[in-house]
């Protein structure tokens, strides 16, 4: 099982995403932004960071990169794609997911352990969770406010395309507390928090059991492997 992890200039969490893929049991393949070849990967992760310096708009320039042409094509054909933070922004700019992401309401970058509710378990990346499960995933961003017009929001809510919702605290003013979305087909998922930072005991969020022991993020990666294996 091979999962591609894209690196744009300014991508920061690619090595962590690769580690998450390996810990879940698949082979991580590095995909360079300027290369249209996807090297036969079975799924793709668009990791977090500040691709192209967040210039113009977050993810806007990355969405035009050669590798994205191939990924958009493949996603339309059913390839599982996970967009994390900046990766979510790239998915939105690529129109693989609807809406927009803007500056946090309170104007500051915030790094916190965020509680989320998993609202949809019928996707490539969330089938390992239970519906309405509460998970803790690190959140760290300055432009994470999800925004969409009323028509889009109604459609998203109505069709059950909200994948994750912020629980307890809305850290960035996202409408309807939306933390992550899925597409209709269920192969593309995007979210602001960082599952790749909650995959290894000792380096994830604190839990009541022990410091830094949270690994709720690993399920994202085992889910996609599970789906691909059982496909």
């Amino acid at each position, binding site marked *: 099982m091979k999962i591609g992890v894209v690196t744009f200039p300014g991508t920061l969490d690619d090595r962590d995403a690769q580690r998450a893929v390996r810990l879940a049991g698949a082979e991580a393949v590095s995909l360079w932004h300027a290369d249209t070849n996807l090297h036969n990967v079975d799924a793709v992760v668009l990791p977090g960071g500040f691709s192209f310096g967040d210039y*113009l708009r977050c993810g*806007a320039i990355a969405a035009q990169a050669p590798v994205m042409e191939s990924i958009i094509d493949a996603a339309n054909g059913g390839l599982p794609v996970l967009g994390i933070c900046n990766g979510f922004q790239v998915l*939105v*700019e690529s129109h693989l997911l*609807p809406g927009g992401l*803007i500056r946090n309401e309170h104007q500051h970058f915030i790094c916190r352990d965020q509680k989320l509710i998993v609202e949809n378990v019928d996707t490539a990346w969330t089938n390992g969770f239970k519906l309405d499960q509460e998970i803790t995933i690190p959140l760290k961003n300055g432009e994470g406010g999800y925004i969409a*017009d009323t028509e889009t929001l109604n459609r998203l809510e109505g069709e059950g395309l909200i994948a994750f919702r912020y629980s307890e605290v809305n850290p960035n*003013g996202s409408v309807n507390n939306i933390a992550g979305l899925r597409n209709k087909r269920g192969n593309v998922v995007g979210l602001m928090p960082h599952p790749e930072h909650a995959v290894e005991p000792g380096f994830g969020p604190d839990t009541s059991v022990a410091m830094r022991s949270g690994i709720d993020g690993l399920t994202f990666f085992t889910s996609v492997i599970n789906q691909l294996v059982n496909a």
Partner: protein
Amino acid sequence: MPKADLLDPAGKAVANALQRKGHSEVTNVRIGKRIELHYATTPTEADLQTAKQIAADFLSNGVIEDVVNVSVEN
């Protein structure tokens, strides 16, 4: 410019700051972008049309922004 009905957090922050400074006459602030495309020779009508396309497709995100004006300046 950010779309009229969407929250503009940067604009809001500036508006609040102006209020604090005593400028109650300013009721709202919205912050957009000015992008300049530079050409080697004077842009033609065709160049202008292409620029409008570029503005709509790439320089702006139609979900959250409106292109207010594209024009040739000296």
